[in-house]
């Protein structure tokens, strides 16, 4: 046994004195080897080939004429596209988007129905729902009449059963369905839940075929709409209840539609009454008769409107006859608020079912105008007094309904009609409410073209009525989407701002101003925007009013950033930074800074050195950086770092390298809490050094040499403040390389020494994404990398030969490696190629203007002996280790693989003409094969390689060796 012969043991690698197995490295002719081993180059057509393109396998057997005796007789070529594993993973819907899709389904369904009949430019009701629900809320207590108490008479008259019997039967009925009671003192949320319950029980009743109960529920619900107690909640109540009505309408329509499809296919979308069978018609008729006999006006109106679409089953003209009738019916509703919402519902159903019938929409609007005076009638006033509601607040309750009606009326309406509508509105006294809706609902272009007129009208409005800031808000909204005539723009802005600046409440003011910022940004320069900002600051600073307006102020910033992408212009607005100062709450402040930085990164394409931008952004970034504290989440830190480093990357002072460096110094002081930024800065400085080198074409003058040394110094003192040890190691290595490239030998030496002395501190486990992982592989990678660098690092004149290599090896020896790990030996084995490369006459690579050891020693035999000694020691260490591994049964596999890697090293780098070495290699081979754990395929290929090598001139000796390498047969 070969290993038993090795009986040496050393105290230290460096002082090793056993010469049994000196590595006589083989001479290498790198150029020639490169030539011979280079792969054959095949020109690639770039049109066809792209590494990321899906791989297309084209099987074209018959095209290869050279291939004789092909069994394939078909000349077809089949091609299959191999699936990209990434895209095929994502092919199915991933869970997140599935959730999103699921929640969107309901909305989508609703939207779809509305979009079928009208274009996508029509803002659907579903978009308004949420807004209304959020806006019209109340803290007052509400009451709801329990569903089962049905006083609406559904069946008229009734039969000959005596009165007494009937009452008794009804009582029984009621007991069956639950007692009648009125629920009082419900909070708004409870009320909404209650209505949702009704919605559910409607669906349930329908599903269990209790059609009459379903109808009762719907009637009950729509009756709630005639109740105007807690008037400020009315719009929301309307939204909730009309949802139920929509459900009901859909259920009835679907049921009748399914009755038609029972005997044939499903009805086509464009069916006519003739396609409907008698049973379906009869059922449909029945519904209409039942609804026609509902006692109360409002339920009858709403329920009939809900199933308006069903008229299609009966006859062609049903809808166009019913709509005007229902429109007229609304005149019977005395309460103007109830009436206007009923109109809104009718318009909504009308738009959905028959958008071509514009007349009844217009009729609705004109009726609304003629009943407009009701709003100021006595009964309304009395009610308001009772409920303690102010007129301006009351008037805003109308807005959603009137907006909607006008939106329907104005949709694709010709301009003359709109003009007529506007004239009619003008004629009515106190028309601010209408004016507001007109501006809201009419086409923005229409409003914008008449903006000056509108301002005049707004000014004429009564102070006590509809709030003026809302009027200006609506106008501003229109002007934000459409442009008024060029000449009028400045006048408009002046006129509007004159009024806006006088709005008293800071909240009202900012609501309005926020809207007008967009108009200002769109059409004017930084001067005007600056004025606007100054005005906002002036209004919001007293009493710290800005604290309640953060979302709006944020939106102001957002709007400005949408229009001003040039940051030098942006920051030259005097008031921009003071405006930012208003964001004093930490979270909001950071959010605003973030927005600014995002826009900056997106739109700043050229590096900049503009001092205005730099100062301002440094300020912004500092605000972000300062928000980081011990509680900040990792993710948050990461995204902040990303934004700030985006800024750092964009700073470039051109040829003024000194200033760039001093910027980095300043930035380091500013952003010391975010490590990724320090890393970024080190990279920037390294880049700066290399840039200097490039500019000087490698020949540093005295000044530039001093500068690059300063850069190195910067890196050297910054790196230790990083916490991640591997980050530090790789930065030391990188900075060392940069220093070396810039001929700063002592600096490079310092970096490498620092790296070496850091090695013992590397922990055995590090935490990666919250899990603890072994650091061994990372460390091995680094050491290999480091070895590769050491080849060209010249020895320090004051330290001994191969000072750094020895240093690394000593560290490796002393490092507490994992038990039962072969890492240490692996390092030893991988040091062999380095030593082999060092003993060559010309090195594989070198750094321009830096003399490596090849030149320093010039192949001095002493130097070579030194290397040989080191090799010897290493090999003996490895062999020693192999011996210990051989002692135990469970470690022989490791022994095998280690011996094989040593064999490979020897084969590649050793001079195998040396008999001892040759014998050692053969022994290692045998050791690898002894336990039968070698990989046969690798062995075979290795043998093939050796044979191939033997063909080369001067390598005949290894041909002999092959004879002695036996393959273990698998039996």
């Amino acid at each position, binding site marked *: 046994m070969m290993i038993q012969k090795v009986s040496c043991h050393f105290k230290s690698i460096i002082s090793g004195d056993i010469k049994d197995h000196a590595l006589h490295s083989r001479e290498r002719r790198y150029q020639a080897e490169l030539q011979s081993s280079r792969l054959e180059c095949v020109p690639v057509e770039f049109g066809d080939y792209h590494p990321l393109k899906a791989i297309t396998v084209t099987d074209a057997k018959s095209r290869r004429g050279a291939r004789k005796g092909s069994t394939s007789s078909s000349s077809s070529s089949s091609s299959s596209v191999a699936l990209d594993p990434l895209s095929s993973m994502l092919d199915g819907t991933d869970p997140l988007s599935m959730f999103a899709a699921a929640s969107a389904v309901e909305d989508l369904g609703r939207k779809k129905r509305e979009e079928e009949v009208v274009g996508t430019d029509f803002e659907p009701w579903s978009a308004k729902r949420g807004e209304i629900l959020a806006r019209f809320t109340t803290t007052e207590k509400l009451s709801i009449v329990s569903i089962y108490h049905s006083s609406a*008479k559904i069946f*008229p*008259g009734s*039969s*000959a059963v005596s009165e007494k019997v009937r009452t008794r039967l009804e009582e029984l009925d009621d007991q069956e369905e639950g007692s009648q009671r009125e629920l009082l003192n419900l909070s708004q949320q409870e009320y909404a839940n209650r209505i949702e319950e009704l919605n559910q029980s409607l669906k349930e009743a329908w599903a269990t075929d209790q059609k009459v109960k379903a109808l009762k529920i719907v009637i009950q619900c729509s009756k709630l709409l*005639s109740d105007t107690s807690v008037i400020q909640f009315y719009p929301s109540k309307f939204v909730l209840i009309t949802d139920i009505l929509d459900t009901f309408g859909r259920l009835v329509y679907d049921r009748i539609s399914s009755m038609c499809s029972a005997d044939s296919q499903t009805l086509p979308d464009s069916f006519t009454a003739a396609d409907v*069978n*008698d*049973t379906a*018609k*009869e059922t449909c*008729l029945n519904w*209409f*008769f039942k609804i*026609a*006999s509902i*006692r*109360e*006006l*409002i339920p*009858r109106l709403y329920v009939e409107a809900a199933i308006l679409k069903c008229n299609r089953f009966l006859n062609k003209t049903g809808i166009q006859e019913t709509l005007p*009738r229902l429109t*007229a*019916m609304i*005149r*019977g*509703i*005395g*309460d103007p608020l*109830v009436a206007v919402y009923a109109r809104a519902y009718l318009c909504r159903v009308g738009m959905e079912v028959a958008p071509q019938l514009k007349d009844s929409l217009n009729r609705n609007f004109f*009726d609304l105008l*003629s*009943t407009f*005076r*009701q709003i100021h*009638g*006595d*009964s309304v006033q009395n009610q308001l007094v009772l409920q303690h509601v102010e007129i301006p607040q009351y008037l805003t309750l109308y807005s959603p309904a009137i907006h909607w009606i006008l939106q329907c009326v104005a949709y694709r309406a010709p301009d003359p009609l709109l003009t007529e509508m506007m004239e009619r509105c003008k004629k009515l006294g106190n028309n601010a409410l209408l004016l507001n809706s007109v501006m809201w609902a009419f086409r923005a272009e229409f409003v914008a073209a008449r903006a000056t007129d509108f301002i005049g009208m707004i000014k004429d409005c009564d102070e006590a009525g509809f709030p003026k800031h809302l009027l200006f808000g609506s106008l501003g909204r229109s002007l934000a989407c459409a442009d008024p005539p060029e000449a009028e723009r400045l006048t408009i802005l002046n006129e509007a701002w004159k009024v806006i600046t006088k709005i008293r409440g800071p909240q009202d003011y900012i609501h309005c101003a926020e809207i007008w910022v967009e108009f200002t940004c769109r059409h004017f320069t930084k001067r005007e925007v600056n004025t606007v900002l100054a005005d906002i600051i002036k209004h919001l600073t007293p009493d710290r009013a800005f604290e309640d307006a953060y979302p709006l102020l944020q939106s102001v910033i957002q709007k400005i950033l949408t229009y001003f992408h040039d940051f030098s212009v942006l920051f030259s607005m005097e008031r921009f930074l003071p405006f930012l100062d208003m964001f004093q709450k930490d979270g909001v402040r950071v959010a605003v800074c973030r927005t600014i930085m995002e826009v900056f990164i997106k739109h700043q394409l050229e590096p900049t050195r503009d001092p205005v931008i730099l100062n301002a952004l440094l300020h912004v970034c500092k605000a972000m950086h300062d928000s980081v504290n011990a509680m900040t989440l990792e993710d948050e830190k990461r995204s902040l770092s990303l934004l700030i480093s985006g800024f750092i990357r964009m700073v470039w002072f051109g040829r003024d390298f000194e200033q760039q460096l001093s910027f980095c110094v300043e930035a380091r002081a500013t952003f010391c809490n975010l490590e990724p930024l320090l890393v970024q800065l080190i990279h920037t400085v390294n880049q700066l050094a290399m840039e200097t080198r490039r500019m000087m074409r490698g020949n540093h003058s005295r000044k530039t040499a001093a500068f690059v040394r300063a850069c190195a110094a910067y890196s050297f003192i910054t790196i230790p403040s990083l916490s991640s040890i591997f980050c530090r190691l790789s930065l030391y290595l990188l900075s060392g390389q940069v220093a070396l490239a810039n001929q700063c030998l002592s600096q490079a030496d310092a970096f490498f020494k620092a790296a070496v002395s850091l090695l013992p501190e590397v922990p055995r486990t590090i935490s990666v994404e919250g899990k603890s992982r072994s650091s061994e592989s990372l460390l091995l990678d680094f050491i290999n990398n480091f070895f590769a660098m050491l080849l060209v690092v010249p020895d320090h004149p004051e330290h001994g030969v191969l000072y750094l290599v020895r240093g690394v090896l000593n560290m490796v020896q002393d490092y507490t490696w994992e038990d039962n790990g072969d890492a240490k030996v692996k390092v030893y084995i991988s040091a062999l190629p380095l030593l082999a490369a060092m003993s060559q006459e010309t090195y594989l690579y070198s750094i321009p203007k830096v003399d490596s050891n090849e030149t320093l020693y010039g192949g001095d035999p002493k130097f070579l002996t030194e290397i040989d000694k080191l090799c010897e020691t290493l090999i003996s260490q490895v062999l020693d280790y192999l011996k210990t591994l051989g002692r135990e049964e469970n470690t022989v596999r490791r022994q095998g693989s280690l011996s094989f890697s040593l064999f490979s090293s020897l084969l590649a780098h050793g001079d195998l003409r040396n008999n001892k070495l040759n014998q050692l290699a053969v022994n290692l081979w045998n050791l690898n094969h002894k336990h039968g754990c070698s990989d046969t395929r690798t062995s075979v290929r290795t043998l093939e390689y050796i044979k191939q090598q033997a063909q080369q001139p001067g390598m005949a000796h290894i041909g002999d060796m092959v004879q002695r390498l036996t393959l273990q047969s698998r039996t």
Partner: protein
Amino acid sequence: MSITLDIRLKRANKVYHEGEVLAGVVVLASKEAVQHQGISLTMEGVVNLQLSSKSVGVFEAFYNSVKPIQLINSNIEVAKAGRIPGGKTEIPFEFPLSTKGNKVLYETYHGVFVNIQYILRCDMKRSLLAKDLSRTFEFMVHCQPQKAKLVAMSVDFTITPETLQNVQERSLLPRFQIRGHLNATNCVITEPLTGELMVENSQVAIKSIELQLVRVETCGCAEGYARDATEIQNIQIAEGDVCHGLSIPIYMVFPRLFTCPTLETTNFKVEFEVNVVIVLHDDHLITENFPLKLCRV
């Protein structure tokens, strides 16, 4: 062993006119085969008259006169005695709707004191051991369209405190003036009652305006008669203090079954009226009555 018997008519709305043929199927469903002694169909049309409780005491004398009046009673055999196989069996039939002699088929009407009803009954006779099966099924009869030309006459009305009758203290009444019109009081039963109404002015706020459809049923004979008016339905056309000077539509659909063309026979009468009811906020109730004549064209 269970067997179900059902009648299905071809017409979904179950409405027939005199001289037409009721076509349909008798549906038998059972798990096993069934032995029977014959299946027959009977058509019956009856007018049931009833006296209101308040009348009974007074007019006991002519109690006899209110026995049901038979309009039609005929019988056909659908299947002879035999065996019905298990499963679902449909036996088609055609049954002419025609009267004997000069009897008139009145239109189906469900009222309080007068009821005109037509039924189809299917009987299955069975051996002594098993119960006979029977199933009844109501169908509607509409009378023949009336030949007479219908002239739609608009009826105008004005309601003010002065026009009211049956008022105790006219001076206590609030001022009001309501004008309107009904497009016709000779109404086609399938068409809605229409018109307009306008509150021109009113001192007191209006609470509600309603249309009350009333049936007036008269049962009697030579000795005397009972006449009762009862409400069929009440339809609200205005709620709350409606806008003055704006016309409000009057619109009411005549309910099926509960209305029929105005009917006048020797034994009974069915007539209809509509009341326009205005309820003021101080709970004054103002009613304007219009007799209607319904007909079918």
